[in-house]
């Protein structure tokens, strides 16, 4: 088992319902790989925020576009990627929501929450286009057996 990566891929429609669905799936995966309820909440919230970004700013709520959710269960950590079909963006261009002038803004906190809740956050623009938000969370201890139905590559 060690050394193998299990992958779970989900393609979501650009719908408001996909936000809840992505979070629900994430909570199940997080529980299955051994994260406790509090960590599951943080991971679920992070995926929720990444999918909200994809739905709102990436895919501009255009239903024909897709949101790609990928879980990679590595031996020591879980990597989650959320990719949209929008124009892409650079993390350094996102305003700091803690800056005095941004405190009362009604949006712009999603990526900040992901950074607070996950161990690593990376945003890239893959060759296929769009933005890909990559989030990493290290397992709290040795990972239990893979969830039923997970494929090994």
């Amino acid at each position, binding site marked *: 088992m060690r050394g193998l990566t299990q992958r779970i891929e989900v393609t979501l429609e650009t719908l*408001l319902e996909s936000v809840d669905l992505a979070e629900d799936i994430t909570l199940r995966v997080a529980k299955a790989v051994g994260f406790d309820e509090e960590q599951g*909440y943080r991971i679920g919230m992070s995926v929720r925020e990444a999918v*909200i970004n994809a739905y709102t700013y990436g895919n501009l709520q255009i239903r024909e576009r897709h949101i790609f959710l990928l879980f990679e269960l590595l031996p020591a950590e879980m990597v989650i990627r959320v990719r949209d079909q929008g124009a892409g963006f650079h993390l350094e261009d996102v305003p700091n*929501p*803690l800056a005095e002038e941004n*405190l*009362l803004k009604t*949006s712009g*906190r999603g990526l900040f929450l992901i950074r607070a809740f996950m161990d690593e956050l990376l945003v890239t623009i893959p060759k296929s286009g769009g933005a890909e938000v990559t989030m990493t969370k290290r397992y709290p201890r040795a990972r239990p057996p893979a969830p039923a139905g997970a494929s090994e590559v």
Partner: protein
Amino acid sequence: MNLQATNRDIGSATVVDISGRITLGEGSAMLRSLVRQLLDHGRKHIVLNLADVNYIDSSGIGELVSSFTAVKKEGGELKLLHLTKKVHDLLLITKLFTVFDVHTDEEKAITSFSS
């Protein structure tokens, strides 16, 4: 669980007991509509009782901020009451805990309105 809310008028203040999730979509929209309706009826001293709000996302946080500024713009005040640990922690890390007037006692929240 969808957002549910009931209002209680106590003197010039309105306490809104909210339960459920304040998230992107219905939850945020309902909170926005609720606060706008109170303002339309001249209720400008608003306490949001969040004791039964077990989940809030960035959209929900944005809606709280939007409500706060909308009430302030009308010359009123919006206060938060009985935050759950999750909401408390989110307001702390987003530095909004210092922006909102947060209370743990309903009576004190009501008497704290300036006029």
